[in-house]
């Protein structure tokens, strides 16, 4: 029997970029929490993720989800050296703003605001788009992230030079690259497997 995609019919869906705590609902059936095996739980990496319909959908391929989750965590949370967390989240937000992932942008804009205490600048990026003037260092990070997000990628020597001129060393530039690149993974999953729901 052919399976059927879910059309959730979300009322009052989010149609602008926001830092509000909006939700997400899937278009394909996630696994039921009660049906998760040990392999699924390893794929989820954190037991708490079993509550999320997004992760319970992705866990249908537990090997890929496990590696993806560990990649994600290291790119964003391993901040002992390299780019500060706020600016990795800025790269994630810029990629999400460029691809048009309202849900991803909401989550990572909140993180960027929290870790930088620059909520107004983050909001400006959401409201005005990737051309917003956020000061040279942030402008350089946003421009590089957006160029890398283009298909084909438009990231060039000028982006590397601008990041270096803004004070980023090689490790920090590599962190910008990874943060933006990772959201070209995350955005495509979030955008294509479900849709945002309004904040409660």
């Amino acid at each position, binding site marked *: 029997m052919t399976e059927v995609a879910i059309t959730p019919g979300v009322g009052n869906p989010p149609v602008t970029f926001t830092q509000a705590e909006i939700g997400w609902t899937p278009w394909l059936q996630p696994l039921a929490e009660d049906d998760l095996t040990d392999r699924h739980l390893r794929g989820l990496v954190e037991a708490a993720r079993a509550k999320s319909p997004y992760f319970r959908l992705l866990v249908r391929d537990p*090997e*890929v989800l*496990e590696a993806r989750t560990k990649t994600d965590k290291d*790119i964003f949370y391993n901040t002992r050296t390299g780019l500060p967390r706020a600016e990795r989240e800025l790269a994630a937000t810029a990629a999400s703003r460029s691809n048009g992932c*309202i849900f991803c942008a909401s989550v990572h804009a909140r993180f960027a605001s929290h870790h930088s205490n620059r909520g107004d600048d983050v909001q400006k990026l959401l409201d005005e788009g990737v051309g917003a003037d956020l000061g040279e260092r942030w402008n350089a990070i946003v421009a590089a992230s957006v160029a890398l997000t283009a298909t*084909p990628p438009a*990231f060039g020597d000028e982006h590397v030079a601008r990041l270096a001129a803004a004070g980023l060393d090689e490790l920090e530039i590599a962190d910008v690259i990874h943060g933006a690149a990772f959201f070209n993974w*995350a955005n495509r999953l979030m955008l294509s497997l479900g849709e945002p729901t309004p904040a409660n």
Partner: protein
Amino acid sequence: MTQVSPDIIDLLAGITPGSSLDSIRAQRPETREQAQQSYLALFRPKAPGDVSLAERQTIASFIAGLHRQPDIYEFYVNPLEESGTDRWLVEVLKAEIGSGQATGPYGDYPEGPLSVENKAGLLYRVSDTNRDVLGEKLSAALEHAHLLVFRPREASPQALQALLDAGWTTDGIVTLSQLVSFVAFQIRVIAGLSLLSAASKRAAA
């Protein structure tokens, strides 16, 4: 056949042991290891499940071609050329990459204030003749991959239904979505690090 796979990002970004970029990547061992594990889970899976290895290589080659990355395209298409099971497949794939060329991201936002940012672009469909060679399942996958590569904000339940109607299962769609999205990530890491590596070598020269 057991074969140790080299680190694919290092290989395709031209990062050699002892280079500046090698030491940069060595400071992020978990990222390096798990990006490789993601590749292996998708392209050397323990069990291919609902997506065959040939389908995986074909779709990845298509994505690399759409990103105009010849080295990455060669890397993914090579096993298909070597297997020689279907000599037409690679020719058809090249033709479809040609007709799928575009510049992204584009597409419409949900109706509202963001509609002013809508950007029109190619709505790719596999040609009728090539659809016969590729079959419904693979044709539907290429059309979905093109949607995800260039206009992910236009994704919809209808797009998933088209995959289900073409013979994809829910599990298969999850793997397909991960594959397209992972390759989009991998290409950008490779493109970014290659450029950084070249800049670093110039600075050291």
